[in-house]
């Protein structure tokens, strides 16, 4: 006869197996990103690889914005500010760092070589510094609601942009840079001219690894108690608080999480374009990201992916109609808002749609040989 303790511990999952099961999707995500890099990239050619990179970066940025705008319902229109912070931090590390340690401005090493590891560190540094800014922006959200919060985030984005524009000139001579310490170079971010000659480390593997990891994280967040707390804050803050949700904590955590990935998105963007122009990452960029989230469907993960894909690919396809392209885009935006106000997916996910359920139900029934 086993003791009760033994019987209970037999029911507990093996911690190693549980951790493995929990990490499996991330491993699969990285593997899938590797496949995209190794197989799909070369197969579609340079032009489409660039478009795929843009789509992936848009997914990272819009997915992170979705946590604040879609889940927590805190209307933020200063997301490009986080992007800019992350881009600067990462570019500082890779540009000055590779000159200090590798004596070159170019990319170094092959797959997961020194250069790419430095770039990964840059991405994470960008994310961390952006999330510090996330705390700063998250704090006003404790006092402000709705449109007022939107205006403060807008103000934050503009301030970051202007501060970027007043940083000191970027030295480009290798010998001059090696004379200064990394800390002394921290304010030499190019000012209004922008930060240029950033080594082009961004490739499909990194973009999609981060994109898939973010998607898994926000999927898990959506169906976890933390995520439900955020949704409750979105629906009605006072009611959520009455139900025992720590709204303060929920909102600040949402901002920090969101800023972290926006910073990474900014780092990926900077190392793809090869330069940071603070004017490019201002109010207009923030609005572009909000449009992706709203067109896709606020709070819907499938919606983000669809919205990012559509809004990046369509303008590329219609590039030849340059003069009228933006006019049509503006009209389409107005029409979508009037005809389908909830966005393409609404608040639903692909797997929550009635059609999807019907198809999957039929498939699983036929698998079981129609047994009832």
């Amino acid at each position, binding site marked *: 006869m086993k003791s009760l303790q033994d019987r209970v511990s037999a029911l507990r999952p093996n911690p190693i197996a549980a951790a493995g099961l929990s990490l499996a999707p991330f491993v699969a995500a990285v593997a899938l990103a590797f496949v995209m890099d190794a197989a799909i990239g070369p197969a579609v050619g340079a032009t489409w690889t660039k478009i795929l990179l843009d789509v992936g970066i848009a997914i990272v940025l819009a997915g992170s914005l979705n946590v604040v705008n879609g889940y927590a319902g805190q209307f933020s229109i200063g997301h490009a500010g986080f992007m800019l912070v992350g881009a600067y931090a990462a570019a500082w590390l890779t540009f000055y760092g590779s000159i200090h340690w590798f004596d070159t401005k170019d990319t170094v090493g092959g797959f997961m070589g020194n250069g790419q590891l430095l770039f990964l560190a840059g991405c994470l540094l960008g994310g961390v510094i952006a999330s510090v800014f996330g705390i700063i922006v998250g704090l006003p959200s404790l006092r402000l609601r709705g449109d007022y919060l939107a205006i403060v985030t807008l*103000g*934050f984005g503009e301030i970051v942009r202007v501060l970027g524009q*007043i940083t000191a000139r970027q030295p480009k001579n290798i010998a001059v840079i090696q004379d200064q310490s990394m800390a002394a170079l921290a304010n030499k971010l190019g*000012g*209004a001219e922008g930060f240029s000659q950033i080594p082009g480390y961004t490739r499909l593997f990194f973009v999609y690894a981060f994109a898939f990891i973010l998607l898994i994280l926000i999927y898990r967040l959506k169906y976890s108690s933390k995520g439900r707390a955020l949704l409750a804050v979105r629906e009605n803050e*006072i009611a959520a608080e009455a139900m025992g949700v720590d709204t303060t904590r929920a909102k600040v955590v949402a901002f920090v999480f969101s800023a972290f990935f926006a910073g990474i998105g900014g780092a990926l963007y900077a190392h793809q374009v090869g330069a940071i122009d603070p004017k490019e990452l201002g109010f*207009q960029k923030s609005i572009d990201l909000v449009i992706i989230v709203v067109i896709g469907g606020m709070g819907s993960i499938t919606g983000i992916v669809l919205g990012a894909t559509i809004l990046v690919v369509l303008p590329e396809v219609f590039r030849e109609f340059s003069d009228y392209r933006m006019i049509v885009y503006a009209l389409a*935006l107005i029409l979508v*808002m009037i005809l389908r106000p909830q966005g393409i997916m609404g608040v639903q996910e692909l797997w929550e749609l009635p059609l999807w359920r019907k198809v999957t139900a039929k498939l699983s029934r036929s698998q079981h040989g129609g047994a009832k």
Partner: protein
Amino acid sequence: MSDLLQTTINTLAVGGLYALIALGYTLVYGILRFINFAHSDIVAWGGWLALTVASSAPVFAMPAVLLITMAICALMGVSIEFLAYRPLRKAPRLNVLITAIGVSLFLQNVGLLDKFFGNRPKGISALLANDVLVTVAGVELRLFDAMTIVLAIVLVVVLERLVYGTKMGRAMRAVSFDERTASLMGINVNVVVSLTFAIGSALAAAGGLLFAFRNDLRQTADASWVLLGLKAFVAAVVGGIGNVRGAAAGALLIAFVEVFVHRYISALFSGTQWVAQLQDVYVFAILILVLMFRPSGLLGKATVEKV
């Protein structure tokens, strides 16, 4: 001393310009509760339309140019509301906001077409010289500053009388207070909303013309228009959005921060090339400060939210 007076005149002129534009934001927000992002584009169109009208008119006809431009922009504002915003009257406000951004992009890019205003900046100051009207103790009062100050005061006073002294104004305030009850009391909400857009856009046209005189005309998609709109909007929020007097007060405060503080505080950092850029930081910093301590603006009323 003369320097102080000169800076004061600059503050008043910039404040008048912001007030004219801020009123459009505040009126629309007061009634429909959304940020009309297309407002800054009406300002831009006002400037360009004024140039188009003025280039075929003699100098003494400037008041007529102003009135014609204001009328055209009022018509534009009313049609935009009718076509783009009215179908969304019952939709979530975020949708209206995105629609406003759509309208804004539309106006910017239509303005860029060669058939309209083209994509090159144009000088408008050649139409009217910025003469010095009077010089007292070394302080110059220039034509454009005087024009802006006088026009802003006149239009703000007229609007104030309209909103607080007429039956139509009472209808506007009633709709702003409670749209449903107002319509039950026999107020035609659609007429009130159209009128609001007409007034706001006409004021924006005046602002656009004055801004163009001071800074020449950039292409309609230029970031300077958006920044002008943002600052005017910040003025409306700082003053207490939805409040006519608040918009004027906020505009003066923002102009004070931008011109005065810039003139005397930034002097401390003189010698660095980036000082001019700090103006924008001051404006947005004051916005964040005001909202932290008075979340509904200086003259706005705090509202209690219920479940």
